[in-house]
């Protein structure tokens, strides 16, 4: 990988130049929570000043710029002979600034499903190809456990990745497009001093992880503890609201709805993101529900994340951002559930 540095002043110029012609998305505070902390989201920015490079955590993940909550898959135009199907893929270019390593790793996991397995998804592909990603390092928060999930660093899946080393950013460059852009703003060669400062910052970040989750035996544990009381204990709290899936950077399951416009001249087939915790997730016509209870649905959420995905792609689906833990109205966090599972396993031994 190539490395350069860019001064913060030049970075500002670069963002302003990007803003001229492109849609730019970045972390922006939208509100404050009950304790007065800012609530951030990835939103369209109109000026460099709106971009909050010191943001802590975005409430929902930037995943939705690749997998929108709602997306039209096809339009049908009715006529005398039946209908004609029309399929259009979105192609407008976009820049996302400030994505964390965990969120970029989340995209890499989504790439596995959407691009690298069977039936590559054209909607996702078009969005991925048309998005320039500028990542940003940060010091972990209290509850970040991305280090345990091996997603605290990232080597590909982005165009530029910035690490703040004082008056400038240390930049990892991963695409030619980004290389050309960066060089227009007097990007500097990496000096010995830059390198040392970068290493110091990285060590500092590493030392600040407070939350750990032991996932080494998890795939096996998921099978062994399939009937465990732990699922009922946590599952009975679950309100089956689906908030966890909405904020999760890797959840990709969805449903399809079709509607006809009032003139009966056209219909739309629309995809909307769903959650495996919602009551009718596995309900079939005729009334049978394969997962009628909240605790069974919660168990399958974990089963897919920590067992199924590992079997398919040799990595768990979770990236350790704890957004689901923060968003959960019933106070269910992945760390608590996994710790509980491991504890029962140890007690039995």
């Amino acid at each position: 990988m190539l490395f350069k540095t860019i001064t913060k002043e030049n970075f500002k110029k670069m963002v302003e130049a990007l803003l001229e012609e492109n849609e730019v998305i970045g972390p922006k505070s939208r509100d404050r929570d009950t304790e007065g902390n800012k609530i951030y989201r990835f939103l369209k920015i109109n000026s460099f000043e709106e971009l909050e490079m010191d943001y802590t955590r975005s409430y929902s993940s930037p995943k939705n710029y690749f997998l929108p909550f709602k997306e039209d898959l096809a339009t049908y135009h009715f006529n005398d002979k039946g209908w004609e199907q029309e399929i259009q893929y979105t192609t407008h270019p976009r820049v996302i600034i400030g994505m964390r390593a965990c969120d970029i790793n989340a995209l890499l996991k989504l790439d596995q499903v959407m691009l690298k397995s069977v039936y590559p998804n054209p909607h996702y592909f078009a969005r991925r190809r048309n998005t320039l990603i500028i990542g940003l390092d940060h010091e972990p928060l209290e509850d970040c456990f991305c280090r345990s999930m091996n997603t605290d660093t990232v080597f590909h899946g982005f165009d530029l990745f910035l690490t703040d080393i004082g008056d400038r950013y240390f930049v990892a460059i991963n695409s030619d497009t980004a290389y050309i852009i960066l060089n227009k703003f007097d990007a500097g060669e990496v000096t010995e001093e830059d390198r040392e400062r970068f290493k110091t910052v990285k060590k500092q970040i590493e030392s600040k992880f407070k939350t750990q989750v032991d996932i080494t035996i998890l795939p096996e544990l998921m099978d062994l503890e399939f009937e465990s009381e732990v699922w009922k204990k946590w599952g009975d709290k679950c309100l089956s609201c689906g908030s966890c899936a909405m904020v999760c950077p890797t959840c990709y399951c969805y449903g399809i709805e079709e509607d006809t416009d009032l003139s009966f001249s056209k219909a739309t087939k629309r995809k909307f993101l769903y959650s495996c915790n919602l009551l009718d997730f596995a309900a079939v016509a005729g009334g049978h529900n394969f997962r009628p209870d909240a605790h069974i649905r919660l168990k399958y959420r974990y089963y897919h994340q920590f067992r199924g995905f590992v079997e398919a792609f040799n990595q768990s689906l979770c990236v350790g951002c704890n957004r689901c833990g923060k968003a959960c109205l019933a106070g269910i966090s992945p760390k608590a559930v996994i710790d509980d599972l491991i504890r029962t396993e140890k007690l039995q031994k």
Partner: protein
Amino acid sequence: MNIKIPQYDINLEPFMERPPDFNNKSVLMQTEKGFKSEVINIVKLTSQEKLFQVRILDSCEREKFTFLPGQFVMLELPGCGEIPISISSSSSNREFIGLCIRKAGKVTGMIDRLEPGAIVGIRGPFGTHFPMQKMKGYNILLIAGGLGIAPLRSPIYWVNEQRSAYKDITILYGTREPGQILFDYQFEEWQKIYNLKLLTIIQEPDENWKGRVGLITDLFKEVRIDPDNTFAIVCGPPVMFKFVCAYLSDIGIPRQRMFVSLERRMHCGMGKCCRCNVGSTFTCLDGPVFDYWTVMNLKEAI
């Protein structure tokens, strides 16, 4: 200074022009392209079920569409919805496919109201198939409960078309009430021409029913199964799988020679929507046809 990020227009890719080949699943990109198809005939089977004969209109697309017994398609009624339906016709019939549909939900309720000539969308075929090649030289035991007979028609046609390659074929078919028996107009043909043995049984008979009464498992008393030389295909409601497969494995049919076709909610057919996901297994990709060994290792499968 201003910078424009290069734009990539997927709509200009050559694949957009080609008819989609759903059998080429590692490169297929027109995931939403439905084959425009005409409902050419509707056979009313019972008060709940109808057989829809559906023909893909475009000759190029029709030629590309091939499937194997056990696979399913996503059937779409634009403006209404899309549902997974297993194919219930001969895989050598390249003119139309048969879809046996029970009116059970919102979309099937609308499909039930269709008339011949209606235009629907078809995507597929999707999923795994019964290993008909491997079954050559063996006896085949087909066990169906209720609507489960629909996906079994495809292997039945297959066996007839290559009859000498297979040994004894037995169909055990049970329904709750006599009025729910499907495809009884074919029973004579299956027995006399296809040379299959067919046993039917009814759970709740009416006064006119003269045949056997009981559960599907009661039919096992009447058939002699050679476990070393038999493949089994089982399709029916989840509760039936349990008892039937337990019996078959007790008498010594290896679990790898027992095949079941599972039902799940599906919204894509392509392993993306996760609605049919059980851990790492997708019923749409790894199924709907599974061997019983796999099913036993699948949590919550049946």
